[in-house]
């Protein structure tokens, strides 16, 4: 199972700033390993962030997003102490969800 994400959500003046780091290889499918074999593509395709059951961001990614992806965005109407949840799904169907409390 993939490592947990690192999620940091900070509320200021009614806007929540969210920063997410994900642990993922983001293999392009175009790289060769030491033995000269193509390493199969393995990358996150979909990301979704929810707050109070409402989607605040969704994304679709290709293999050109960097390894161990970083994502930052802002949404309104979040309060300190509330929770935010982030989920990713990769092209092999693996997925991971983590939550954080808004500071």
């Amino acid at each position: 199972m993939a490592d947990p994400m690192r999620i940091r959500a900070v509320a200021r003046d009614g806007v929540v700033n969210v920063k997410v780091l994900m642990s993922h290889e983001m293999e392009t499918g175009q790289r060769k390993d030491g033995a000269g074999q193509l390493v199969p593509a393995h990358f996150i395709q979909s990301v979704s962030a929810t707050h109070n059951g409402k989607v605040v961001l969704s994304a679709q990614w290709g293999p050109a997003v960097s390894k161990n992806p970083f994502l930052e965005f802002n949404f309104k109407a979040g309060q300190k102490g509330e929770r935010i949840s982030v989920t990713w799904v990769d092209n092999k169907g693996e997925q991971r969800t983590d939550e954080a409390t808004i500071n």
Partner: protein
Amino acid sequence: MNPMRRTVLKSTGSAGLLALLATAGFLRPSDVLANGWNKIAFDSKTMAETLKALGASTPASSDAIQLRAPDIAENGAVVPIAVDSKLPGTQSIAVLIDKNPQPLAASFELPSGTEGTVTTRVKMGQTSDVYALVRADGKFYMVKKEIKVTLGGCGG
């Protein structure tokens, strides 16, 4: 001490993701495969094809969009890109890299209440124009910036 780690609560995988991902924006139902990923757009090999696949064949230019990135990337494996759209009703933001094998790197859907700003990091195979494509109030806008990718270190 890292404040980030302290706030992470471990939880298990979610089942309802696809439902959560069911948002509009760039994705036209006919293009979308079972998992919701726009394969046609991500597999497109030229800017023109990609824009067509995103339904954005002739995007207009706009001063209200800012593409923040360094002029020179020290390493092509990680190029920080921030897109700021001040256009009212910004619904989605996509990042495209002209000279990559497939230009489309990422697209973001921004529901109302989410600001028109995203930051991400992308891979660039070589020096290229990078584009930010924004959909606002149903219309498409696009800005570009050239980012140079340099060779670094001892080179070995």
